[in-house]
């Protein structure tokens, strides 16, 4: 599903990733462990396109995506649930979920038009964009009317599925999302990511700031999503115990490099991991 090779990424002069390679096989849960500042979030940000890699390659479902922008990558079927949840705090729960489905309905002009745009000069791009802006709206509208019923059904099906996983969201659907509790916010963030019907879910630190019981509940739901839908999941987590419990494979990151990679069972037995990350 996902192959990352020799990924180097930096924030200005500060290099965060020094050549990270990892694989996420179809239908698996892969955990990335590591201390604060090891580059866990940066890895996810580079994969989802928020952080442009300096070198290395990222292949998603057989396609190179390292040159694409985040808003293009999501419509290929990858949802990134970012650190700190990043909800639209002033919008309602339902509006957040509607936004989650945005990429499925706004797949404007596929890969062809974008590749074409990148080959143009500055002036050519401006012209291309203006024509797009002028004709795109009309075209989208026409398609919107044609496919309205189909999309409505799709949306409702996705929504019902999420309300099945997280019944509390159904109860709270008209509440402003900023007023939810921390656990509910995390559930909403995951639900919003699932609304895009991704093939790959990137999950960044779902336990952050949550009580242990709620964290466990969320991890159980993540596992259920993987089992029932066969969804591939890449999870970054400080709570190594919990992450290795649900994951099939694990990677340990240290200062922007992969220090260890193995099945999660082997990692749990490994002396180094036990000492550094499992607190045993």
């Amino acid at each position, binding site marked *: 599903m996902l192959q990352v090779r020799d990924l180097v990424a930096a924030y200005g002069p500060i290099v965060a990733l020094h050549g990270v390679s990892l694989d996420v096989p179809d239908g698996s849960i892969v955990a990335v462990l590591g201390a604060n500042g090891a580059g866990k979030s940066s890895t996810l940000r580079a994969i*989802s*396109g*928020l952080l442009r890699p300096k070198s290395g390659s990222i292949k998603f479902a057989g396609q190179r995506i390292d040159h694409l*922008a*985040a*808003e*293009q990558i*999501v*419509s290929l079927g990858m*949802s*990134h649930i*970012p650190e700190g949840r*990043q*909800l*639209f*705090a*002033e*919008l309602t729960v339902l*509006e957040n979920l*509607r*936004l*989650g489905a*945005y*990429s499925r*309905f*706004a797949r404007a002009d596929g890969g062809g038009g974008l590749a074409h745009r990148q080959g143009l000069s500055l002036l050519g791009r*401006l012209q291309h*964009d*203006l024509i797009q*802006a002028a004709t795109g709206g009309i075209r989208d509208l026409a398609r919107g009317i044609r496919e309205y019923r189909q999309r409505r059904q799709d949306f409702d099906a996705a929504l019902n599925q999420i309300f099945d996983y997280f019944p509390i969201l159904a109860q709270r659907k008209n509440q*402003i999302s*900023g*007023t*939810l*509790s*921390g656990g509910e*916010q995390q559930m909403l963030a995951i639900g*919003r990511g699932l609304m*895009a019907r991704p093939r790959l879910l990137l999950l960044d630190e779902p336990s952050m*700031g949550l009580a242990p019981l709620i964290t466990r509940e969320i991890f159980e739901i993540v596992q259920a999503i993987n089992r029932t839908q066969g969804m591939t999941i890449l999870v970054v987590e400080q709570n190594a115990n919990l992450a290795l419990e649900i994951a099939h494979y694990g990677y340990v990151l240290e200062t922007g490099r992969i220090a260890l990679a193995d099945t999660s069972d082997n990692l749990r037995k490994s002396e180094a991991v036990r000492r550094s990350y499992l607190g045993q």
Partner: protein
Amino acid sequence: MAEFWQQVVGGLATGSVYGLLALALVLIYRSTSVLNFAQGEMAMFTTFIAWSILQWGEYWIMFPLVLVIAAGIGALVERVVIRPVEGAPVLNIIIVTLGLFAIFNNLASWRWGGIPKGFPTPPEIHVTGIKFFGGGALDVGPTAVSYHDLTIMIFAVGIMIALYLFFQYTPLGLAMRATAQNPVASRLMGIRVGRMLTVGWALSAVVGAVAGLLIAPLVLLQPPMMMGVLLYAMAAAVVGGLDSPVGAVVGGLIIGVSEALVGTYTPKDLLGPDMKLTVTLVIILVVLLVRPTGIFGRRTLRRV
């Protein structure tokens, strides 16, 4: 008493124009935290274009045409002038909008000259025997309401309802609200943030253009015609809360009515109509003392 109501209605009408321009300001402020000082001049410029089109065309053909042109100008300004300073300190962007103010003002003076021109009110339309728009006045009890004042109010209310429906119920409107709140998360939803900003500027220019078309018959068409209006519109936006579209319109109405009443009833030895601006400023001060974010401004409410 008849005079009082007369003034209130007149105030509501000019207040609606302030409200519309304030709405245009708020649309941009919400998504970029920038006060567009050129908003009034852009509206003036499109009104001049409207005047030129009127030299050979019908009013109701010109109207949609001007709105499309306004949208184009708004989008172009965002792409060409604002995009490069995106991410720069807010003060830089404000200076750029001040520059735009001068450019549009000079362009209009150069192309159309400084002599004030008359501008027509929308011609009348009859729908099932009821007259809309046009000139003359309608007797409502003891007061006579001018048709143009009614026109202004109808447009203001119509635009408000349309914008409300747009932002509340269409995916594009929702995406624009999302972009205003959290651009990074919006990108992760697949929203093209840059395009949303362009659409926001286009929309704002359209709303401003309507304000220009409606106020021009009252103040005569000339390059500085929107300066006073812009001042009151900014006041309206601040009173209503800079991030609230409803607040912008309500603020506009408050300012319009108080301006009309103060202008009429202030005694001569207290400067008479010249007190208008002072009283308006006092209103702003009082509102901001009680509610620093404006009447409808949102105080962010969130748990971490």
